[in-house]
């Protein structure tokens, strides 16, 4: 690979990785508090995309308002899912909580099939065309077929750049929220020890609900950016990105927010690089993340930045 292609792939990988990071944060925060793999997270991601789509097409809202509303709705959906499905079984064995989460994921997918229909829809033309244009740095003007075209240079889509910027803003906001607000402090306390925190007078259920809402809203941001990049919207679109983001969260050390970001970025970059080096293996790119997961889990199950879990007998 020449340096230009390398840089191009790096930018694309970084932006894909930041999408994984945005989704992975939701997994990691919920796991850090409840020790629950929130299977429905990928489906909240999918729902956010449908919300944005319908706010623009049916409600005729401008795209920026639709995006903000869709993100808020995703947060509300995450909160509701926690209240209805997870709260009643908070003291049940971990495995029943996992099975319930699988059921919720299945429920949301079926709901999307019934309400939005299973036929894939296009997300193109909904957001400004500018986002799908290419940024070209360098290169030479040439006249081909009677038109001026730019040949060579480093090129990547505008959306890659926008994704990076939006993700960075979201992460700074998240950092501020977790470390500089009272609710964030309560979240950190709950993730350390639920019982003691509730004895300190914190409404634990509300804090858990807030965590779900925050994680789901971040997944909503990720979803909309994802749909601009890969503009096919359908009810099962959340499964693969959700699984990959989960892999990223495990890779970085589940329970750790910086770990999720790091894991997401590494996963995104390696995935794009792998396809760049071996274009023949592009069909297997979804399998690649799972291979990473198996390897990480067998070598260092606690991930890059996670703490090993101690089982007390």
């Amino acid at each position: 690979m020449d340096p230009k292609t390398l840089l191009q792939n790096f930018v694309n990988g970084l932006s894909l990785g930041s999408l994984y990071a945005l989704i992975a944060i939701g997994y990691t925060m919920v796991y850090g508090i409840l020790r629950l793999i929130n299977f429905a997270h990928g489906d909240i991601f999918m729902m956010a995309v449908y919300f944005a789509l319908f706010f623009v097409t049916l409600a005729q809202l401008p795209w920026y308002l639709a995006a903000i509303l869709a993100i808020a709705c995703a947060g509300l959906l995450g909160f509701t899912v926690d209240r209805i499905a997870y709260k009643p079984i908070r003291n049940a064995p971990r495995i029943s909580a996992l099975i319930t989460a699988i059921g919720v994921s299945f429920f949301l997918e079926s709901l999307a099939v019934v309400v939005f229909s299973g036929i894939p829809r296009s997300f193109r033309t909904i957001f400004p065309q500018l986002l799908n244009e290419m940024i070209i740095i360098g290169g030479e003007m040439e006249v081909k077929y009677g038109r001026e075209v730019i040949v060579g240079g480093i090129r990547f889509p505008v959306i890659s750049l926008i994704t990076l910027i939006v993700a960075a803003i979201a992460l700074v906001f998240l950092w501020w929220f977790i470390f500089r607000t009272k609710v964030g402090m309560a979240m950190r306390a709950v993730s350390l020890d639920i019982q003691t925190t509730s004895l300190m007078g914190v409404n634990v259920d509300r804090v858990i609900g807030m965590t779900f809402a925050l994680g789901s809203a971040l997944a909503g941001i990720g979803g909309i950016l994802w749909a601009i990049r890969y503009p096919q919207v359908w009810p099962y679109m959340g499964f693969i990105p959700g699984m990959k983001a989960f892999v990223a969260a495990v890779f970085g050390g589940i329970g750790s927010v910086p770990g999720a970001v790091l894991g997401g970025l590494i996963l995104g970059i390696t995935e794009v690089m792998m396809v760049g080096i071996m274009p023949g293996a592009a069909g297997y790119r979804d399998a690649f993340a799972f291979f990473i997961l198996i390897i990480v889990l067998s070598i260092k199950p606690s991930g890059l930045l996670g703490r090993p879990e101690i089982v007390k007998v």
Partner: protein
Amino acid sequence: MKKRTRIILTLIALPSIALLLFLSQELLNSYYSRIITLIGIYGIMAVSLTLVNGISGVFSLGHAGFIALGAYTSALLTLSPEQKEMTFLIEKLVWPLNSIQIPFFWATIIAGLVAAVFAFLIGWPSLRLTGDYFAIATLGFSEIIRIFALNLNSITNGALGLKALPDHTNVWWAWGWLFVTVAFVLSLAYSSFGRALRAIREDRVAAQAMGINVFKHQLTAFVIGGFFAGISGSLYGHWLSTIDPRTNTFGILLTFNVLIMIVLGGLGSITGAIIGGALFAFLSEWLRFLEGPMNLLGFKIMGMSGMRMLVFSGLFVIIMIFWPRGLMGRSEFSWDGLVSVFKRGSKR
């Protein structure tokens, strides 16, 4: 009840089930006999997953992968060479597979063995993990199997899938294999091996301290579960007659469906798994009216596809929240239990 009475009752019950199946073949039309066949296939899927998820205390989400392996293996073995020549449009089928055709029974056995070998290869690294990590790892493996089925054009015919499978699967194959599966898993579950598995399920660390080799026991259970999943895959493929690697056919949705069956029947009960499988097959046909046009309080409603799955998944969540024991809990069907149910009923 005496042991002899129980044995006699069982010896009466089994031929009566066979007779009922025979009568259903003679009297009912092909639509119903297809559903009865499907009940048998679902039963095998559910019982094999119960052995892993319900009894041995690991939670696998990779069942669809083994079913897919079984379906593809046996399909490639039973299709005639001419049919394969016609089907494989993208790339030709690789050498030894393109010129062999073997009987359905042996193809099914080989399908089970292939799935068992893969279960061994998958279980070996992932059984070092516990709980939800194992669930995710097996889910990842079943996705990998699906992705390979999508991309290995010279073996699986890629996205086009395999078509026109001979319709070998009938009531006798499905229920015969169900009988073999249940007999095998039941005798396994009540042997010392099965007790060791349940001990691991209840308390992994305590079982280990009592000298049970957790890894070996769980791996054996996982491989046996994989074998029967492969068998059910072979039957299911020849029941469907068309197999392809889409999410709806052999993806996570199939694992979801089998999971619904065993949770509905009671996680950990073998008879519960069969009941769950039968209920699932029955309900998914019966609920078809939901997807057709309806007349509700004077309003005409267009048919909504996907409604059945919505009902099932809603039911699934509700069962998990309010009734996590399912229909049977962890108990099995027994003649004594049946008698006591009737006695309680007559007292009221």
